């Protein structure tokens, strides 16, 4: 098994690693039995509907950490709509590919991002519907 230079770089110097103290949304994916767990924190610019800040925490293999790093780098500054368009192929391209048995790590990172965004959308929709309910 051979990791690319890009994977090793993201593993050694992960971007956006850490947590956000008052996040607008979070997600956690993976499970301890399989060995990889990713957590994502989001801060949203509510006016522009953009990802203002994003951080990750990952317990997992080198590929899992590198994928977490790349997915946050890709999502940062994007509108929620565009961030939801980030897929596995973008992650793999940015990392210069992954060994076949590690490709699922890229899917896990996408899942973490999507889950966090959907968590935010669900919260804001709930708020909106509560507001409109009150008006009625």
């Amino acid at each position: 098994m051979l990791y690319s230079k890009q994977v090793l770089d993201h593993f050694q110097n992960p971007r956006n690693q850490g947590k956000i103290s008052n996040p607008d949304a979070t997600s956690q994916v993976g499970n301890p039995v399989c060995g990889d767990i990713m957590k994502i924190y989001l801060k949203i610019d509510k006016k522009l509907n953009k990802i203002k800040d994003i951080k990750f925490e990952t317990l997992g293999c080198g590929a899992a950490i590198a994928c977490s790093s790349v997915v946050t780098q890709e999502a940062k500054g994007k509108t929620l709509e565009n961030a939801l368009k980030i897929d596995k192929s973008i992650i793999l391209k940015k990392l210069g590919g992954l060994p076949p048995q590690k490709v699922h790590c890229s899917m896990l990172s996408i899942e973490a991002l999507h889950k966090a965004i959907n968590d935010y959308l669900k919260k804001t929709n709930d708020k909106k519907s509560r507001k409109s309910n009150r008006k009625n």
Partner: protein
Amino acid sequence: MKKQNKIYFDNSATTQIDKEVLKEMIPYFNLQFGNASSIHEFGQKAEAGVLNAKYIISKFLNCKPNEIIFTSGATESNNTILQGVFSDFKGHLITTMFEHPCVLETAKYLSRRGVDVTFIAPEKNGIIDPQKIFRAIKENTRLISIMYANNEVGTVSNIAHIGKKLAEINEKRTNKILFHSDAVQACYFRDMDVKKLRADFVSISSHKIYGPKGVGAFFMSERAKLSPLMYGGQQEYGIRPGTYNVPAIVGFGKAIQLISSKDHKKIIEKMKKIRDYIIKEALKIKGVSLNGDKDKRLENNINLLFENVEGESLLLKLDLCGVACSTGSACASGSLSASHALLSMGIKPENAHGSLRISLGKYNTMEEAKKFVMILKKSVIQLRKFSPFK
């Protein structure tokens, strides 16, 4: 042969060849290159190399030279023994859940083909309880295969005791049970006298003991019988046909001879000191424990469990710092399942992912161990910082 500042702590995977071994081998590549089965002088010289190696190994195992069968390594030895005994796919086999895959997977294959197989779980400390083996014996049991020392956790089972008790059981039986031990990891460290082990088969491998890769052997007692895996020439009494890999066999013989040299005891003592130092220092890190029995383990094996650290990422971090180790994490296996050996000892999958095996060799030094401990502490802190669990 000094390495470039890198620390090699993966000697249970393979060892570097001893330069004395290499020196013995070289003439057999281009000077004594004959086919050991040829009648002419070229052939005879090559054959002399094979016979000499066989003689050395037979002395080491305390058996007759014709009880040694050369193979390509432990995987072939263990396959030949298990498949050879059960070539008719009848009867009962007893083995353990934490054998090396070349025994375990062969046993599973035999089970699929109709052999009745009992897999004994090791105790939590990684030792096989002999009573569990004896209790599993049936009327149609034909072979018991128990590894001498485990390749992952380095725990050493009492093979001589099992062999002795089994001999007593066999006295009362008409259909004798054969006894096999995969001694690949134990070979360098433990008593390999097959008369004391009371074994019918013992597998050993060259590249774990500073010999070349691609050669191994097994002891096979005169009373034991096997059907060969392959058919061909008369090499190795027809049990293992194929042209002799003469340079490798010569090197293997030399590697075995070096185990009997007088400084061997000192080498083991040095490894034990380094091992105990690393264990002591590693256990000072929070959330670290030792896998496998503290005392009944090989002098070169350290298997640690790190809470809240994934083994593959730790391995990678250490590798980037110039240290080579091994892990039982699923992420490093390609199979996406954690080490079968650790799981069989009752370790939970979520914990087995955080395991690290450090296996020492005769070229390792205390300075390397000290440097390693510093790198290890730093790496664990870094990786735990990445984790969502604090």
